[in-house]
């Protein structure tokens, strides 16, 4: 059935309103959209790594999660959900349940690219029937905007402050999506919030209903860490896609498929200038930083086009 935004948003939300996440944050949007991709009749167990998302949605005695939910620790959402999924297999085998359950883990980039990387890699390699969704906001936002391996080059964070000697983060962003592809899992995709949410919704549905382990990397901006006005969230994600900073693609059984190719690739300035974390790059004398980022984006984009055989 063709995607229809109106019909999609009529589905009941599986993350209730009234949670404590910030206005203009990408994380709960990613969660609600991914959960909406579940067939309404299917049960789910959702796991969250320790993160803004977890502490803001499950503060005792309240929970915003309508599905069964488990939070364990910061670095082990992959292992935890794989334990739940294995329990499902065990109970099904022993005739203790017969309904269909799906297993979805959410982690921020800190809990996914960094401290939770081993646990995630183990879960992917073992091939549990699960989806791991990284809501990537490119720093440790819950503890107050410290750099992660997902933080982009030159970004100003509280552990890579743009100083008079060191101009922000000195390293490029780790390409986790490709690392997940290297695990040989059947479905990996990179997405964000664009237009009518067709891209993320369809990818989430594929990720959930592809048997085996799947990984979804969702760019989910943080207004406090990235320093953009809350209402500009969708403009930031759009600029990330139009400049090819965050390309939309999926990898099905190892085959790369580009989801969207901008008619005219925009210069990176258009994305960088919207965000306070890159403000220092626009000071006179720092033009080289923007040029450097442009080179890196171009290189990654060309590589991706080759992988997609375009």
């Amino acid at each position, binding site marked *: 059935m063709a995607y229809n935004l109106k019909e999609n948003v009529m589905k009941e939300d599986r993350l209730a309103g009234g949670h404590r996440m910030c206005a203009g944050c990408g994380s709960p949007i990613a969660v609600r959209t991914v959960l909406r991709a579940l067939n309404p009749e299917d*049960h789910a*167990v959702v*796991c969250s790594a320790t993160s803004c998302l*977890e*502490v803001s949605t*499950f*503060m*005792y*005695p309240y*929970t915003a*999660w*309508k*599905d*069964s*939910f*488990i*939070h*364990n*620790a910061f*670095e*082990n959402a*992959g*292992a*935890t*959900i*794989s*334990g*739940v*999924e*294995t*329990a*499902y*297999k*065990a*109970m099904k*085998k*022993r005739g*203790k*349940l017969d*309904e269909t*359950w799906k297993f979805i883990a959410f982690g921020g980039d800190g809990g996914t690219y960094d401290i939770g990387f*081993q*646990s995630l*890699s*183990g879960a992917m*390699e*073992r091939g549990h029937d699960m989806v791991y969704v990284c809501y990537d906001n490119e720093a440790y936002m819950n503890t107050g905007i410290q750099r992660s391996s997902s933080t982009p080059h030159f970004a100003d964070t509280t552990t890579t402050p743009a100083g008079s000697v060191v101009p922000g983060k000195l390293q490029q962003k780790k390409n986790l999506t490709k690392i997940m592809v290297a695990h040989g899992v059947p479905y990996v995709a990179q997405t964000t919030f664009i237009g009518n949410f067709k891209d993320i919704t369809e990818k989430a549905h594929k990720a959930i209903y592809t048997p085996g382990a799947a990984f979804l990397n969702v760019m989910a901006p943080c207004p406090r860490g990235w320093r953009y006005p809350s209402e500009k969230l969708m403009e930031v994600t759009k600029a990330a896609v139009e400049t090819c900073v965050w390309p939309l693609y999926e990898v099905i059984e190892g085959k790369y498929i580009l989801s969207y190719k901008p008619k005219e690739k925009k210069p990176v300035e258009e994305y960088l200038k919207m965000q306070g974390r890159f403000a220092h790059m626009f000071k006179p004398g720092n033009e080289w930083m923007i040029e450097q980022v442009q080179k890196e984006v171009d290189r990654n984009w060309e590589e991706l086009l080759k992988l997609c055989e375009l």
Partner: protein
Amino acid sequence: MGIRERLSGNEAVAYAMKQINPDVMGAFPITPSTEIPQYFSTYVDNGEVDTEFIAVESEHSAMSTCIGAEAAGCRAISATSSCGLCYMTEMLYVAASDRLPITLAVSCRALSGPININNDHSDAMGVRDCGWLMLFAETNQEAYDNYLQAMRIGEAVSLPIMICQDGFITSHAIENIELVETEKVKEFVGEYKPQHFLLNKDEPMAVGAYATPVYYMEAKRQQAQAMMDAKEVIKKVGAEFAAMTGREYGLIEKYMMDDAEEAIIIIGSSAGTAKEAIQNLRAQGKKVGLIKIRSFRPFPAEDIAEALKNVKAFAAMDKDDSFNAHCGPIFAETAAALYAAGISAPKGINYIYGLGGRDVRVESIEHVFAELEKVAATGETGETYRYLDVRE
């Protein structure tokens, strides 16, 4: 009647696991507990159990998968040693706080560094305040018997439980053992029927909340209550086990304590060595005895105080050190137990012994009793914090 066999401690525990046929095992190899998941994988791959085995990439993930599986509504088990237990420590606290009765077999081993694969109790004692029930075994038979009782105890109070034995000394040594028939085991252990669980289509459940200062302390108080309640449960399950097998288990075992004037308090396999020493000394007319701690968590404070109240001198034997320039954990908790009971007459000293597999001989224990005899005779303890059989 039971089945007579010859098994190592690791195989005995793996065999108990096979008889119980739990739902999920998540485990990672580490010496000396490696054999347990090895034996168990063989049972899985030969269809002798239908447990789902998760060969995880670390001990941290082993305990994380167990937490996920147990919360989902399953019986989940694991096995580990030493640094592996350290590595899962963070998750041990979560398992206890989530009130998940996971069963963990521990073949105790020294901690790095220096790196060492042999037995002491540094690993288990290092996690003694995580909120887990902890039973220790002297022999292979006890390791097996404790394992069969573990789930009954843990599930009754909703706390996870560690079944500890001494690495290599019992884990790898083969001893005669009497196994319980599998049908009897299944009947004794029973089915796991959690009240609330994740995979319940009629009632969604949320596990692992963020608790502010308004609620955190009540959660901890409930854990404390469960640990207190566990004392009676351990005794009750032990009595039922005795009715089935004739082998009796309580919180402690008293050996020649009725008229003892000097006693040692000890845990694990060295109790066997100590019993030999006590027999020798008794033959010489010396009134010596032993208290073996089976349940370290909950700590049998009342039972120990009661057993020690009439002795003149005792030595608490710690197979690890707290590095507090003062004493090991058994001495500290024994002293606290006596103080809480208002008993001040017995003189106590502490020995740190057997670290990193340092051999504990009958003569070593006889030396401890010789020292205790001096303490009893003079009423002077001298230095209370002592290392046994060490080059100074």
